[in-house]
């Protein structure tokens, strides 16, 4: 008998075999860098150098080169910090939560997404350093024994929570990502011709040989790591949001912040993943692995989280009115109609209105639309943080201290620095490490391939489809 496959639309197209997967992914790791890559890399290195120069000037002269003042003590620095951390979240979310949900479409994108997480967190951390008046003393934020007697840190300060949250988040993501890389590194090790790369990839792959026992433990570990990362990723942005929520400043002192920030983080993170993926799949010719299916599913997440964020915005206003606190209600009226109205409406347009376009299937599945809207969303999310931080600070309790903030060249350049850093790191990653998780893709090829790989011999497809191990996965 012949049972036609009930499987959902394919996640891997072009009838790839296991060997094809290995070949397609390892290609750019082993081959010479492509022209596109070289150009992109040169540009980002130049940007990085410019940014670094500006950063050093900032540190040499003092933070006075920024546009901050006695009233607005944070602006672009912390805006960028929160923005980058938020972006980071998508990676963990994709690899962890989607793993728990057995969302197989993640396999093609999770590797790059996790890399993005790590680099984004590095950028975020760079802003924590940057915004300090005396960055060379940053280590004082750690509970270290010191020359001041037993003077420890202030565990009551959300900034200390941040230190713990961000560093934990970074470490765990890094481990998760690296462990995911090990089998693929082994693949590359075994394909390597040059002795150097055999040595390096050999060392990195920790002597992996893919024995059944190791694989079993490996999968179990991945599951637990995923289980750990899920609450972790939620905690990180929760804690970041507490920087504001635990303060007394109207517009900051808001209990809705944790869920609202997490949703926003996923929102912006997925948008960033979209941007990167759409580039990678073209540059590295991975259209067969990062398919319209992937794009569409991620767009759905974007629409969902975007709507959550939208609801949060409205809730804030409702509470401000409902609480009857004059300062808070003023803070929110001031957001929408005060001197920074443009920032507020930019945020609203980009974050609440634009993602709703994804309800239209053709837009949702259009590469161009996706790319553009993802950029828009990230702009919007940057403005969200700007609005929260600056418009709340610039007019708080005492009108005598009300002031305006306007960025200087160095506010902007130090932001540009983080882009240089991010893309340089990401391009290095995409050149020297497999951007797609080969092992995981191979594992799903049969269940989700467009048509039966030619070279796979042996049992008939019908049996395979009815094979319980796969039906479990198909849900």
């Amino acid at each position, binding site marked *: 008998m012949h049972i036609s496959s009930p499987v959902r639309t394919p996640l891997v197209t072009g009838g790839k075999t296991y060997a094809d997967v290995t070949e397609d992914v390892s290609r750019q790791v082993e081959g010479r860098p492509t022209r596109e890559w070289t150009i992109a890399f040169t540009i980002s290195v130049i940007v990085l150098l410019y940014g670094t120069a500006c950063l050093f000037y900032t540190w040499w002269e*003092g933070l006075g080169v920024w546009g901050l003042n*006695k009233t607005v003590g944070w602006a672009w620095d912390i805006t960028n910090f929160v923005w980058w951390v938020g972006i980071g979240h998508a990676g963990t979310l994709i690899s962890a939560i989607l793993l728990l949900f057995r969302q197989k479409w993640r396999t093609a994108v999770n590797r790059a997404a996790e890399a993005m997480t790590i680099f984004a967190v590095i950028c975020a951390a760079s802003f924590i350093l940057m915004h300090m*008046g*005396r960055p060379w003393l940053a280590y004082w934020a750690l509970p270290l024994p010191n020359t001041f007697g037993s003077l420890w840190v202030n565990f009551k300060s959300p900034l200390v929570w941040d230190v713990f949250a961000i560093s934990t988040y970074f470490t765990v993501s890094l481990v998760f990502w690296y462990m995911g890389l090990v089998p693929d590194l082994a693949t590359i090790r075994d394909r390597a011709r040059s002795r150097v790369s055999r040595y390096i990839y050999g060392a990195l792959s920790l002597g992996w040989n893919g024995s059944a026992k190791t694989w079993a433990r490996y999968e179990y570990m991945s599951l637990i790591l995923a289980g750990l990362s899920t609450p972790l990723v939620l905690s990180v942005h929760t804690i970041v949001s507490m920087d504001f929520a635990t*303060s007394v400043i109207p517009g900051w002192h808001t209990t809705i912040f944790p869920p609202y920030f997490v949703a926003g983080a996923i929102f912006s993170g997925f948008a960033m993943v979209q941007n990167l993926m759409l580039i990678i799949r073209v540059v590295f010719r991975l259209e067969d692995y990062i398919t319209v299916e992937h794009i569409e599913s991620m767009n759905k997440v974007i629409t969902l989280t975007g709507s959550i964020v939208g609801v949060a915005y409205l809730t804030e206003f409702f509470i401000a009115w409902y609480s*009857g606190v004059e300062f808070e209600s003023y803070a929110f009226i001031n957001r929408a109609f005060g001197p920074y109205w443009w920032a507020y409406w930019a945020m609203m347009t980009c974050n609440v209105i634009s993602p709703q376009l994804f309800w239209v299937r053709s837009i949702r599945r259009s590469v161009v639309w996706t790319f553009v809207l993802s950029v828009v969303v990230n702009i919007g999310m940057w403005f969200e943080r700007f609005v929260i931080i600056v418009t709340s600070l610039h007019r708080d*309790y005492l009108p*005598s201290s009300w002031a305006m903030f306007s960025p200087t060249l160095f506010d902007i350049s130090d932001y540009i620095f983080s882009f240089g850093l991010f893309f340089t790191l990401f391009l290095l990653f995409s050149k020297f490490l497999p951007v797609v998780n080969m092992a995981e893709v191979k594992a799903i090829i049969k269940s989700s391939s467009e048509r039966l790989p030619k070279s796979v011999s042996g049992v008939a497809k019908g049996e395979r489809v009815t094979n319980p191990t796969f039906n479990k996965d198909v849900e």
Partner: protein
Amino acid sequence: MEHTKKRYWRGLEELRNDEDFVKNAYQEFPSAPTNDLENIVDGTGTHRRDFLKVLGFGMAAVSLAACREAPVRKAIPYLNKPEHTFPSISDYYASTYVDGGDYASVLVETREGRPIKIEGNPQSGVTYGGTTARVQASVLSLYDIDKLKGPKRGDADIDWATADREIVNQLGSIASRGGAIRIVTSTILSPSTKAVVADFIRRYPTTTHVMYDANSAFGMVQANQTSFGRAVIPSYNFSRANTIVGINADFLGTWLNPLEFARPYAETRKLGKTKRDMSRHYQFEPAFTTTGANADYRGPYKPSQEGLVVAALYNKVAAKLGGSPISATAVDVPHLDKAATDLAASRGRALVVCGSNDPNVQVVVNALNGLLGSYGTTIDLNTPLNYRQGNDVEMNTFINDAKAGRIQGVLFYNANPVYDHPRGAELAEVLPRIALSVSFADRPDETASLVKYITPAPHYLESWNDAEPKAGFFSLTQPAITYIYKTRQMQSSLLTWAGLPNDFQDYVRNYWRANLYPRATGYSSFDDFWVKSLHDGVFEPGRAAAAVGGSGAAFAGNLATAATAIAQRYRAGTGMELALYEKVSVGTGAQANNPWLQEMPDPVTKACWDNYAAISQKTANDLGVEQNQLVSVQVEGRPAIELPVLIQPGQTDGTVAVAIGYGRQKAGRSANGVGQNAYPLASFVNGCLSFAAANVKIEKAGGRREIAQTQTHDTVMGRLAVLQEARLADYKKNPAAGAYIPKVVTSEGPVVADELSLWHGYGKPNHSWGMIIDLNSCIGCNACVIGCQSENNIAVVGRQEVINRREMHWLRIDRYYSSDADADDLKGLEVASANPEVTFQPMLCQHCSNAPCETVCPVLATTHSSEGLNQMTYNRCVGTRYCANNCPYKVRRFNWFKYFDESEFDYHFNNDLGKMVINPDVTVRSRGVIEKCSFCVQRIQEGKLTAKKERRRPLPDEIQTACAQACPTNAIIFGDMNNPESTISQVLAYEANERAFHVLKEINTRPQISYLRKIRNKDEELKKELTQDSQA
């Protein structure tokens, strides 16, 4: 072992049996070589001068070294420690601050021989221990590196001997050929100095002494001459007045000596358990002054109406009290009738003061005061004030003579007419043509740079002097440091040139022996008297007379002529008009090179580092200009000056107000090129200086110049949690009127916001340092701000950084205008009324018991003491600025740059001389850390240690913060709230349920600072936004 033959030499000397060595062989420490010290201390007398010389030697040497290219960074130790002085222990010397006519009796705090702080002298019956911003700031001018290092001929440095020889020769020859010599000075308060001048004139008979004041009161003197036959300025007893009317007299800011008026005025304004009534204050003025800001009713008028306002007021009062009316065209100025009614009602307890320099106007004012029976009650003609002795006519004559070449020699002392006289330009032309011209200026200023010789006189803190600010009130100036530069007091120079012994200290002594000792009683010898006076700083035989308050005086002036003169001069014009005024900060511009004063925000406009064209919103609309736009102000026949526009609510429509004292060209690094010189816009009417002008042309000059303001939002947005007010009438009914008590609704019903807490709190077992700030008696003078700056080494950041909103002042005075809008019209509330009520609110760290800043600091750089202090640990701070963001009062300041050392912040602190003003008890904050008010913790610690050493508790009110000490009106009360004897406890005991409120009570920060509600003596309802009793 005694058998040993081995012997060790202590060096070759012993081997050689050097004579010196043998002498000292058995001394562990050879005696210190004292010779070189004695070179400095000429004559080893035991009196204070030598002691001071020794004291000053180290610092003088350092500073001299500092003036070379490569400063020698060496502390020079006392070779033998002077008696009564200990390193790190302050010594205080009573002295007298005199700057032209400005006067204050002060105590000078010195550390290891360098003055670091000025305090008021509580023993003074003139200034009552108060200070002004200028007095506080004067210590910085001592360390001004732009001062001359020695005498100069033209641009060449010369030594004193040469200078003396040449000058004496030329004086001699001029005198011998009968050439005219003039000594041009500002007002001289010092009787001894006047005697010196007299001696000089005796030696050179062709000399005459010309006094003038940049901001003249000559008209008053004349008026009193015609009215009472007394060419004086009487003293005013504000404390006795129920109704005070000020007409263009900024008596709390700049008129005569605000310091003398502030305390008595405040007394009439203070309220409390025993005093439920206060004076009512009307102010009529063309510009918006500090005094106007304190008035209950304020009426703006155009300068061209000044005479008419006075005349109208006279007539209205006369109508009520049956005086003869004078012919005057009616004038429409708000509150005039009301003022008249109140004046008439409070006859004998009324006072009208007028700042006009027009004798005719002042005559009418005198008549009015006579009508009100003020003489002998609120005005005392028998105790004249000497603050303004300038004679505008003589000064003009001098300039005319100079132009006509009739002057051969001129000496300038405390006078810079080229800058601050309207005819300065004319003088500048002819000055080089005068055979001998000498200036005693401490710097080559606008005038001095044009004279032949500059023989610089030292700062008052380096000088001996005396002063008689008002009849019968004397005080002494004594040096707190020896000469930093090769300067010599003007008096010594004059004596030298007059061929007399030139030790001015002896001269003052002798003068006092001869003229004042006889008036003293109860001293065994003059030396006792002298030492006592020197210790107290003041000798006031006139107190008794002053206490009487003078006697009634019959007005003998000619009202009719005055009236006609007024009718001629004052015709309400339709054109644009100009009103020049003096700023509280830089005043007449004499101290312009003082960065503290330059950066001190004007009490009303909150602007610093500039002068500007202040116009009302309506006028701005008519002219089509907006804030910061450059306009050219043109008085016909005068050079136009370009100024940025400042929109000033309450400014008379059709009138532009411009401050004098700016636009210095040769004052030094801080002042040069700041603002525009407005003196040339002044004029002379019937020989009297006039600061008003009609038919002024104002045109857009194109371009903008941003004005540095420390506060850019004018209104309080109807926020009762921040600011509370009430009417006197309501206050009398209910002392807690106007209270706003935010409540939180809980399951047990509404609860006062700060009675709820998540935490158990903590005790303040020992002390609980707190503060009360009385919004009723705070006049916004900024003395506290500069006092704080001086005490706590607060950096000056300069114009651009103020524009960037980064001024560092730990203590600021928020100024709020009232608004006409409803409490819920948020946009409308942002706009101030056309003629707003003003409230000053000093704002500093509230030392919250639940401090939001502490919670958020990651590194515990700011924590709370068990004495209620919010402490800032600078060297632990990593500069996240989270605390500043989370401070609801926005009182935390961040060091954006290295303000103390970098060359772009060239405000005295970046050179070794300027650094001498630094208070060694307070850390100089580095780049990248937060700083803020510490309640002068260094003073608290010092006080506690003193008490501890004396085995006692600190006495109530023994410990005072710099701001509380500086305040001329005692609006700031600091003390230990745990000590029932302290003033603060006693005041809080009743005010807690009456006027006291915490700012932002509803966020439960529980501040240590309480404010006393502002009470306005008004009959109408107050501007609605701040008065409804509402609850959250």
